């Protein structure tokens, strides 16, 4: 009998629910029963309520079972799951699970499908097709392709990637750098982590294309220390890619060098801000730099530097492989392509949903998420990480695109969506936003450093009803100062969650609607 291929994910979120124990038991039990098994540790498909999601390759396609606990393994084998047999945990053909079938997986097309560290698997699934095309183009043509695709920075700021690349390309310097910001600190986001753990060659390929485009020979990936599995997988992928000639002194025989290293952060949220990250990479405290000069002109070690988020770089190989027009065919207005939305918090079916821009929060929460995990009504949804606004139900039909969200004083950020049910206390969450800013502020500018601490105190007074109307006015005034006077998004966006909580849920602050108007 031929060995049956079985997939057990190695994603952190799977490991955190005993995927290793499931894999070990499966091997042991198959050995005991004399069944031949080819075990592949794939990335996650991103349906986290089903993790560990075990898949079996059958002639009809891959069949999914989940969530599989170690104690389910013997029963699954009894039920003949190696040939796709019936079992209460059977989810059917993976590709036909509605949650996956309804997505538009461009960047995440390989996620959970391939072995993350197999170059052969990667190339069998369109991997390195983008780099091969880039190798026959000159730098201007690569930059032009990225510009035309409309790709904007996926870290949160949504700045057009092609413009950054063009600036770095046009600057003369002996040494240029390509730096990937993988300091994914936003609560509710994990798409960078999934990429590093589940499809690291895609990031390496994207960064290599950037290096060819701008003439950089060195690159760094700055990964947060909270992601040890991601660091380990990426380091191994770099080793494999270097050994195969995709990195190193002579990338694919092109005569161009590109060396890539991983650097680990150390638990500072503000190091996700690009200039603080550069300081950290240079070995200093992660203090935000004033701009100008732009990092594209004077970035890492004072040299011209392309800085993009993991998902931005990861989007590039497909843009090169299939052309800018293909990518631009997805999305709405100036929000081109797809965004991996990440459903998190109190949601029944939490996971990664890659869709073109323009769908609505309501579709994500109900059609994909299936409502709250607790079964209670959803009260508030924080979009775009800890610096993103709380979006009330009345705004759930606004299309998810950069401009529409900016117009309502919110931001898509890195695509994190954190759901809270009706037990959430919005005054407490607003206080937490200020507290988080106080803990994580780099301390360089006053509005952020002092404002956040004063913000905690003022919210405490509002909640205690200590001269409430005056304190509400003070909080708004303080938020105004932080919004307009902070050096970076840390202090500059902390007012988003605070003010949206105050505006949309005044009752949680002890305010009635008229008080809100008076304030």
């Amino acid at each position, binding site marked *: 009998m031929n060995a049956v291929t079985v997939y057990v994910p190695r994603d*952190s979120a799977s490991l*955190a629910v005993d995927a290793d124990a499931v894999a070990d038991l499966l091997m042991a039990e198959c050995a005991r029963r004399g069944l031949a098994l080819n075990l592949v540790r794939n990335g996650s498909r991103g349906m986290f309520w089903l993790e560990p999601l075990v898949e079996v390759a059958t002639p009809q396609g891959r069949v999914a079972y989940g969530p599989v606990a170690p104690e389910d393994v013997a029963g699954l084998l009894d039920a003949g799951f190696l040939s796709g047999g019936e079992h209460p945990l059977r989810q059917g053909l993976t590709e036909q699970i509605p949650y996956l079938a309804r997505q538009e997986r461009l960047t995440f097309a390989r996620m959970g499908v391939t072995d993350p560290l197999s170059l052969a698997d990667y190339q069998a699934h369109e991997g390195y097709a983008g780099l091969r095309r880039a190798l026959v183009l000159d730098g201007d043509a690569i930059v032009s392709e990225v510009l035309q695709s409309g790709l904007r920075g996926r870290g949160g700021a949504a700045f057009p990637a092609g413009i950054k690349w063009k600036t770095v390309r046009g600057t003369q310097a002996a040494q240029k750098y390509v730096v990937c910001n993988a300091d994914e600190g936003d609560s509710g986001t994990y798409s960078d982590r999934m990429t590093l753990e589940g499809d690291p060659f895609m990031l390496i390929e994207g960064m290599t294309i950037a290096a060819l485009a701008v003439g950089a020979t060195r690159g760094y990936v700055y990964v947060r220390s909270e992601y040890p599995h991601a660091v380990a997988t990426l380091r191994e992928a770099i080793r494999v890619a270097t050994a195969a000639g995709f990195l190193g002194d002579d990338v694919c025989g092109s005569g161009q060098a590109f060396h890539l290293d991983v650097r680990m952060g150390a638990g500072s949220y503000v190091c996700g801000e690009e200039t603080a990250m550069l300081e950290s990479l*240079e070995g200093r405290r992660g203090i935000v730099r004033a701009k100008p000069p732009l990092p594209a002109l004077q970035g890492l070690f004072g040299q011209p530097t392309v800085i993009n988020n993991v998902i931005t770089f990861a989007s590039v190989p497909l843009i090169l492989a299939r052309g800018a027009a293909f990518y631009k065919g997805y999305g709405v207005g100036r929000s081109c392509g797809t965004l991996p939305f990440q459903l998190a918090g109190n949601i029944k079916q939490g996971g990664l949903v890659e869709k073109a821009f323009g769908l609505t929060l309501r579709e994500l929460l109900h059609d994909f998420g299936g409502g709250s995990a607790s079964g209670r009504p959803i009260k508030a949804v924080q979009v775009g990480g800890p610096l993103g606004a709380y979006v009330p139900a009345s705004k759930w039909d606004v299309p998810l695109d950069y401009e529409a969200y900016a117009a309502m004083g919110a931001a898509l950020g890195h695509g994190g969506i954190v759901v809270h049910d009706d037990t959430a206390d919005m005054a407490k969450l607003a206080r937490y936003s200020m507290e988080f800013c106080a803990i994580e502020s780099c301390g360089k500018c006053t509005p952020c450093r002092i404002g956040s601490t004063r913000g905690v105190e003022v919210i405490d007074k509002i909640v205690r009803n200590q001269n409430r109307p005056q304190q509400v006015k003070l909080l708004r005034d303080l938020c105004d100062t932080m919004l307009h006077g902070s050096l970076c998004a840390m202090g500059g966006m902390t007012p988003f969650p605070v003010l949206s909580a105050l505006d949309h849920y005044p009752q949680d602050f002890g305010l009635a609607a008229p008080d809100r108007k008076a304030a």
Partner: protein
Amino acid sequence: MALSDSTTALGAVLAKWAQEPGGLLPALHEAQELLGWIPPDAVAEIATAFNLSRAEVHGVITYYHHFRSQPAGRHVVQVCRAEACQAMGADALLAHAERRLGCEVHASSADGRYTLEPAFCLGLCASSPSVRVGGRLHARLTPEKFDRVIAALEGVQ
């Protein structure tokens, strides 16, 4: 590890990183990996190797939450306090952890067995609440599951 061994090992770490551009953070990571924390003696040695003042090295160590200026308990327990975990009961889980481990957050238990810390996002936001104990991640935690994780640690001691 005997003191002389760890001193030699630290010397090797510093020799590896001191000439590397931006080598201070990787050196601190490896030093902490080696020693469990970054003691004052090591600060002096690191400063000398990098041609920095002790104040500069101290400034970097204390800026980052990850680096320790005090030794930790045998097991470091980190409970995620970020929004996605809060939405699924992280505050109650943290309070439970304080009772179970016998120490407050940011402190160690009297017997030196546990250090309890907050984490701000472990990236398991769709499987919240989550905890890291030593090098292991645990998601979809309840107080009961938390107790089982801790009991398993005590079983292997």
